[in-house]
């Protein structure tokens, strides 16, 4: 029963990728096929999860990724359509980087690197502190910190790099830091 459901989930995962391939290859968007493909992937994940839990989900995702890679290999061997080539834009030597640009780059690096990491750690610790009062199990709270930092930091870095204004970048650091300070200062960080 469990094996059969897992196999069905894996087959559905591979089949759904093929359906998406079919759908996205059409000149016009095909909502029906799109929905079928995505629903198939969701169903495959569900079946694999029902059969073997997280292990089953991991296997189904590997199968879907493998199927997509096989389709890519096939695409790689296809002869490319003739396309117009456009002449390269005339080369004009760009101005050399000046000192101010380097300073700006270094500041951005410091803000999005170590400082953003510190804010991510503070937010994760604050979320744990709040969760412990909910309450959640101590193990869950502690693992929450270990899992949130790798997620919050890159997302914060990305969000900061999406804006070019320094004030906005600083706000992205200070607002969550202030938000994290409240539970940390009021509730403390006790075990």
């Amino acid at each position, binding site marked *: 029963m469990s094996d059969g459901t897992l196999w069905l989930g894996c087959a559905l995962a591979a089949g759904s990728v093929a359906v998406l391939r079919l759908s996205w290859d059409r000149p016009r968007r095909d909502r029906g096929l799109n929905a079928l493909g995505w629903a198939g992937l969701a169903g495959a994940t569900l079946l694999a999860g029902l059969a073997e839990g997280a292990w089953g989900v991991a296997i189904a995702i590997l199968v879907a*990724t493998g199927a*997509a890679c096989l389709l890519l290999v096939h*695409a790689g061997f296809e002869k490319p359509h003739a396309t117009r080539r*456009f002449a390269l834009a005339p080369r004009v030597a760009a101005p050399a980087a000046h000192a101010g640009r380097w300073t700006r780059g270094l500041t951005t690096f410091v803000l999005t690197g170590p400082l953003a990491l510190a804010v991510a*750690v503070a937010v994760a610790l604050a979320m744990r502190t709040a969760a412990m009062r909910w309450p959640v199990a101590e193990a869950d709270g502690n*693992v929450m910190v270990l899992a949130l930092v*790798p997620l919050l930091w890159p997302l914060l870095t990305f969000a900061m790099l999406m804006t070019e204004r320094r004030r906005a970048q600083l706000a992205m650091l200070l607002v969550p830091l202030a938000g994290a300070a409240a539970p940390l200062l009021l509730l403390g960080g006790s*075990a």
Partner: protein
Amino acid sequence: MSALLSKDTVRRGVAAHSAIGLVCCALLYLICVSGSAIVLYEEFQRLEQLDAPEMESIAPQAVDRAVAAVVASEAGEPPTTHLYVHMPTEALPRTTITTDTQAVHVDADGAIAAPEENAWSEFLLALHYRLNLPPVWGMTLVGMFGAMIVALGVSGVVAHPRIFRDAFRLRARRKDEVATLDWHNRLAVWTLPFALAIALTGTMIGLFYVAGFSLAASAYDGDSEAALAPVFGAEGEADPAPAPVPRVAPVLAHMARDYPAVRVSYVILHDPGTRGQHVQVIGEHHRRLVFGEYYHFAPDGSFEGTTGLADGAMGQQFAASIYNLHFGNYGGLPVKIAYIVFGVALSVVVATGTFIWLDKQARKGRPRPLVHAGWWGVTLGVPLAILATLLARLALGNGEPFVAIFWAVTLAAVGLAIAQRRPWAKRRLPPANPEYAR
């Protein structure tokens, strides 16, 4: 996707993607390549020492004899704090005993057969785990790069306005920069779930010194072991008074009787030969992502309970799944092969990403031929250097300076590539496709 994201958002996404990628590219590539190789950690250990005794299983009494032999071989020396018995598993069908000072293979009768010689596998693992740097610095650095893979994944999605429409478009036979761009985008899109899983789990492992120590500092008076105790369990009270080394056979008999579906992968003696000693078993659960469950036994072999990695709090199960999910050792060789293929794909994504940026710079009138050549040196040099260390291991032996060989070959490859490409700086670049213009 294009309807969801404005042109300006896409432009900023490309800029963010480029900025993160450029800062990280070389070491990220090294981590991806070494990570793809280290999936075969157990298989490499077997390759390194082909004549080590192998067995499908070992009798509990033979394990007792082996433990006694190893303890006897260390008589007169400071007692080991831990004694690990690696039990034969499918991936590594060997019985190996490791103490604080030595590691030996034992045969099926429990006699010491030979010292363990797996310096190359350990070198490769250390290269991936911590770039051969001291653990605190190396693991933290690798963890940071893992986090940047997450940022690159997110920014890459934002930077790609036709992510679904082009998902299967791979113009690999075009001999121009479009092929490079397609390789980068297509492999990145389809390996995104894998990349995120690898990156998040790797970052959790790598950033422990940041996140875990911060947690310890804020809630456990700086005691990181206490911070992990609710998850992985705590060490027992130490009592250095001498005591007979516990027998392992009753423990293994208990496991076989009460947990027949669990495969014992490790037996660990904590503080063996002291009154504070206790026995811990790591049992692998079939079709689970958790690396195993800890089963605790008193020195007389009586069962005391489990930690809860397999059936305890969600956080425990989650934390215990991180290692297997990262290294791909949860489904035998098929899953390992998938991890290697996707790992190589991720390495190609990192390598082509930098080439795309360099090509774009050239089109903007800022060609960087030496950097371009240097990047070719890195791209080819890293796998070549790993291969060189493996050849050194197989041809010269276990004691070779693999770290020095690796970095020497890598740097030589970069230097050679730069030296050879120097005259190319004046070469005219091929025309570009307008897809690049955005």
